[in-house]
């Protein structure tokens, strides 16, 4: 075979020229949006609910019409966003981003990556409508974000299953144990749980610790001020072990994710499940109306504390258009816009002046929250992320191998000492 070098050379040269031209255009292209910056607000969202995302885009378009400022909404995969945010906050921040309040927000506030928006709070008088929820976005008396929607955690169950097997909602520990016996006799798993993704086991720990030791001691543990080997935690693990030994939980729970565990509840194979209202996504649409929830049973005679995790929206410290971002947030946070955004996801609204939701679960959560003495967010939102990872694994191991309790707690204590430098 012969090769015509001369002809080849000319085509190769044109190819190279074209390629060079394309890459040069790409390089200059990256800086082009700089021209349009002043009248643009970029938003990074991590909304997995398609309907809520649609509402968010509509709010962006409405804002654009009203103010003339262009709104660009980039939506990311929920899990991928959790790692991406650490890059973009430093390297190329948007003007508005969605995140989680509490300790997860604080991690970025401490590193100076979120903008102080106390001025927006004062101007729009948000404290009046937010009440105690303001605390979720406050660090050292300053506000760094706006709470969007919350998830109230509780024991979810199907009304028809409870009626069919003549079960009653347990309010105390003894009733809970009796409920377990009765549901097992009826062929149900008393409590559906899937610990493949680890966190449901930690949520169970939170619930028990809040019922036995209360909020202050729980937060002492979350803030690394209390040892995992502390004697006050012993009853928590004693009660928990009792449940494990009696076969309360889904067998082989480490093989199942929360969605599969939710399916056990939906398919009437399990009696109750500790989760947020999002468990309804595992239900067929016609069955959702059967779903309801009750608070975790009372154990010690103390005030009722609940887990209420609050999502939030922030302005990164490196945002280019902070004034525009504030205007957009104020618009987004107007009652009619906020409630429209929250409605599809079934989240509990943070503002007290929003109209009642069409979702009975949301309204029940709002009512339930009014009777609560205090709230925590969730284990992996309340404690240091490094500690959370060790804790989540530890609780999963405890649920599978309760006899290893001492070794697990020793290990967690070692991790706590390393992280909180004790």
């Amino acid at each position, binding site marked *: 075979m012969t090769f015509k070098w001369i002809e080849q050379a000319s085509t190769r040269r044109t190819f190279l020229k074209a390629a060079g031209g394309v890459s040069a255009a790409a390089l200059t292209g990256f800086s082009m949006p700089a021209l349009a910056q002043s009248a643009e607000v970029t938003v990074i969202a991590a909304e997995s609910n398609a309907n809520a995302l649609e509402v968010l885009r509509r709010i962006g378009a409405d804002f654009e019409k009203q103010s003339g400022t262009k709104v660009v909404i980039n939506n990311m995969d929920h899990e991928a966003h959790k790692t991406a945010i650490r890059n973009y906050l430093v390297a190329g921040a948007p003007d508005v981003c969605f995140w989680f309040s509490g300790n997860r927000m604080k991690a970025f506030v401490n*590193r100076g990556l979120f903008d102080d928006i106390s001025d927006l709070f004062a101007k729009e008088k948000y404290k009046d409508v937010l009440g105690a929820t303001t605390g979720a976005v406050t660090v050292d008396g300053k506000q760094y974000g706006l709470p969007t929607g919350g998830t109230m955690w509780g024991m979810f169950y199907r009304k028809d299953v409870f009626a069919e097997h003549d079960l009653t909602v347990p309010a105390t520990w003894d009733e809970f144990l009796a409920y377990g016996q009765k549901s097992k006799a009826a062929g149900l798993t008393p409590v559906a749980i899937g610990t493949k993704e680890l966190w449901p086991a930690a949520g169970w720990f939170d619930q028990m610790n809040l019922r036995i030791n209360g909020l202050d001691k729980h937060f002492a543990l979350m803030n690394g001020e209390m040892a995992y080997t502390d004697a006050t935690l012993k009853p928590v693990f004693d009660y928990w072990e009792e449940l494990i030994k009696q076969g309360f939980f889904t067998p*082989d729970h*480490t093989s199942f994710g929360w969605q599969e565990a939710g399916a056990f509840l939906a398919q009437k194979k399990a009696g109750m499940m500790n989760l947020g209202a999002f468990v309804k996504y595992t239900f067929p649409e016609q069955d959702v109306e059967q779903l309801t929830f009750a608070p975790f049973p009372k154990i010690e005679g103390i005030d009722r504390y609940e887990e209420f995790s609050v999502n939030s929206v922030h302005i990164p410290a490196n945002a280019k258009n902070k004034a525009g971002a504030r205007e957009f947030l104020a618009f987004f946070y107007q009652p009619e816009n906020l409630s429209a955004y929250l409605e599809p996801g079934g989240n509990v609204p943070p503002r007290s002046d929003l109209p009642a939701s069409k979702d009975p679960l949301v309204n029940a959560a709002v009512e339930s929250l009014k009777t609560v003495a205090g709230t925590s967010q969730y284990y992996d939102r309340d404690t240091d*992320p490094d500690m959370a990872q*060790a804790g989540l694994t530890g609780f*999963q*191991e405890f649920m*599978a191998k309760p006899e290893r309790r001492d070794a697990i707690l020793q290990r967690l204590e070692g991790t706590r000492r390393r992280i909180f430098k004790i």
Partner: protein
Amino acid sequence: MTNLWRRHRWWLTPTLLIMPAAILFAVVILASSVESLWISLHEWDGFGPMRWIGFDNYRELFNDPQFYVSLKNNVIWLVMFMLAPPLGLAIALLVNQKIRGMRFLKSLFFIPLVLASVAVGVVFSWVYTPQFGLLAIIFRFFGATAPAVLSDEHFVTFAVVTAALWPQTAFCMVLYLAGLNNLSEDLIGAGRVDGAKGWNMLRHIVLPQLTQVTFIAIAVTVVGALRSFDIISVMTSGGPFGSSSVLAYQMFEQSIFSYRFGYGAAIASILFVIMAVFIVWYLTRIIRAEERGA
């Protein structure tokens, strides 16, 4: 100018041609490896300031029970993965026969190679699902209860490797099929004249001609075993309680979930050392083979 070019062309041309690859390799592989080593001597959360702590990360690593679990699992991966080349060879010999319908069989064995390993992982985790999975159904047919393999800390790694072996075996089979097509007819004919058949033919005439293919199959399998990550992430996330984690997954978990880039880099460095042993062996083999060839 043209004169200068003409005089130096003999070394400029190859240099220019190698340059893009060399620069890419230097930036993407060399520089980042050195930086990883550098990070492993610090305490760093990924965005804050780095704090020099010397060899503390390594000291902690060698006292970390999880490190030994991951290391042990890496060894299990390596050993079990070595089944792939012989299994691949066996299947290749089987489907290499000229029988009607063999083409169809061949393509069946080829299928797992087309699937993304994430898809393989998902499919196998369905097979292993207690109560509803295929494994549970098979066991039930014989009146037994299937163990929840992905929930058992002793079985879980074996279960995951079994899933990963499926595409790996197919890959080795393809390599061997290509090798079998290149067998020298002369040698086989000569062997047949000398009365070799069956096992003797395979052992003394076919296998020696497949040495190079075997070498590549083993090399690819070792690398595949050491970089196992995606299928673990999909099937178990390293669980239950870290018992199916390997070094690569532990590194990812520590860096991304625990915000400990220094510690993660230390794990990566150890993994690099293990890989380096193998790479040195591989390179010396290649260089020796090339010298013999030249």
